[in-house]
């Protein structure tokens, strides 16, 4: 018998640059495991965002393109349109996808582009140093909302999964989290489903992953997990917002 738990082939040997308690590493691993299990590493193209995961390509062992801030869905569209045989995913944070790249994600989703978006929502701009994001919680202190997010001034946080699920075309929209093993198992299933739909040539699939940023939240990793569970998950509710089955069944997804 060989090892029962080993590093996925799709993951490189490099140590990541992520902070202690950050969930990017977990998410990278889940993606790599799914790619191995579905066996499409040889025809996979990832798109790295601008944000903490800008160097994600260092940690994977397949083709990658690096996007300008927010433009990953347009790049994925370009790749997938000219090379439908490639399996393409964007890996984007909340500043990237829900702020500067809002136009690109909405239109790619609405066209039903046949790629997958992994959306890492940690309610803050990470790489630039903890500024307020469109997903920052009401009252949450950040370096650009030092008195807490004032919703009178900048509105309520954007719920991307719900927003995209309002479009008719996308196939699969879900929100999961990776803060504890019980959630991680479900998150992996969701990622696998999203890629499976792409392999079946179904249209756009989207997995939002509620994540932590202890460094910019000013918390320990354990506190960050607790805050995520108690605060973020109350607002960003986990679940499937749209599935191909719900579309063909004509029922509204919960």
């Amino acid at each position, binding site marked *: 018998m060989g090892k029962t738990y080993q590093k996925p082939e799709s993951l490189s040997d490099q140590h990541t640059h992520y902070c202690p308690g950050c969930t990017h590493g977990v998410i990278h691993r889940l993606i790599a495991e799914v790619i191995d299990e579905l066996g499409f590493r040889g025809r996979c*193209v990832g798109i790295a965002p601008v944000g903490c995961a800008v160097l994600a390509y260092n940690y994977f062992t397949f083709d990658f*393109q690096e996007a300008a801030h927010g*433009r990953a869905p347009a790049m994925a569209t370009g790749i997938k349109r000219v090379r439908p045989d490639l399996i393409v995913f964007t890996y984007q944070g909340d500043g990237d996808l829900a702020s500067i790249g809002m136009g*690109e994600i909405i*239109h790619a989703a609405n066209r039903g582009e046949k790629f997958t978006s992994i959306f890492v929502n940690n309610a803050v701009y990470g790489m630039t140093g903890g500024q307020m994001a469109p997903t920052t919680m009401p009252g949450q202190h950040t370096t650009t909302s030092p008195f807490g997010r004032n919703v009178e001034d900048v509105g309520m946080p954007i719920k991307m999964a719900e927003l995209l699920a309002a479009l008719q075309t996308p196939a699969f929209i879900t929100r999961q989290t990776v803060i504890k093993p019980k959630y991680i198992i479900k998150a992996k299933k969701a990622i696998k489903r999203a890629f499976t739909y792409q392999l079946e040539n179904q249209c756009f699939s989207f997995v939002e992953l509620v994540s932590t940023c202890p460094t910019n939240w000013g918390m320990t990793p354990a506190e960050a997990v607790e805050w995520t569970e108690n605060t973020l998950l109350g607002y960003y509710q986990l679940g499937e917002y749209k599935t191909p089955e719900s579309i063909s069944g004509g029922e509204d997804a919960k």
Partner: protein
Amino acid sequence: MGKKVLMKGNEAIGEAAIRAGCLNYFAYPITPQSEVAEYLSHRLPEVGGVFLQAESEVAVSYMIFGAAGAGARVFTTSSSPGISLMSEGLSYLAGAQLPAVFVNIMRGGPGLGGILPSQADYFQATKGGGHGDYHLLVMAPASVQEAAEMVMRAFPLAEKYRNPVIILGDGLIGQMMEPVEFPDYLKTEPTKKDEWATNGMQFRNSNKPNLVKSLFLDPNQLNENNLILKAKYERMKTEDTLFEPYNIDSPYQVLIVSYGTMSRVCKTAIDHLKENKFEVGMIRPQTLFPFPEVAVFKAASKETCKAVISIELSMGQMVEDVQRCVQGLRPVHWYGECGGNVPTPEKVMEVVKSLV
């Protein structure tokens, strides 16, 4: 070469791209180039190509990036305000060394400006537009025929340098109809793309991932990348500078430097002046970057030449390059209009005669 057909510049540009083997087109509508998209929206499906109307010019430039990064021949067309929005993408394409072809059918600016012919995007095209140390290879056609030929040359040039090429036409080049005889279909394929394109490892029988990027956090690596780009721009200067001399063997008193539609007006003016025994020569840059520096310097150096003038549909942009090339040897003047009216040959004659 086939039969001459009467075609709008915009349509000829679309057809020429197909004949260059480019079957991938992403675009956003804007006057005065929308006919390219209209033409390709029915023509590309006929030949099994990809046509997509994007949500914005910003998105277009990254669809181009993605497709080019995956190793496909790809192009887009737009007009001035749209090119401003694409300029971010152009910088990334240049930084990541991706080949792609852009066409700018220029209209007047700044801002919304107007929709009539203009050459006011000279600086934007030749000096940057986007951020960072980069250049586009800039080609400037003066007729529908030349627009078609340049589009077909642009793809191999973009691939030779792994750098975006832009065709800089004005509104008239896009809108007017002229007879056009298309060159034969290009036989060449992009070469060596397996070395860099994200076209899927299994398709190139490799276990080494390719990475398309423009981020170099290490200052030495970034400097190195910029030196690679600089070397390409220097190579463009020696290998791919194009220009057309006109009446340059005559004992001309004035040298005109002019390009695109404006240069045709100048040609007619030169012909009329010649009938009146007033000799004027012209250098018409066909590439604006690389600029025909040596040709302009040599032509200005001619003993009979008393003055040089840059005639352009902009408020004195190319004149800066002309001054640079003439190196103070002769007085360098400028004449132009930038509201959308193209000066008549009579006006050019008057301006040129006033110089000596």
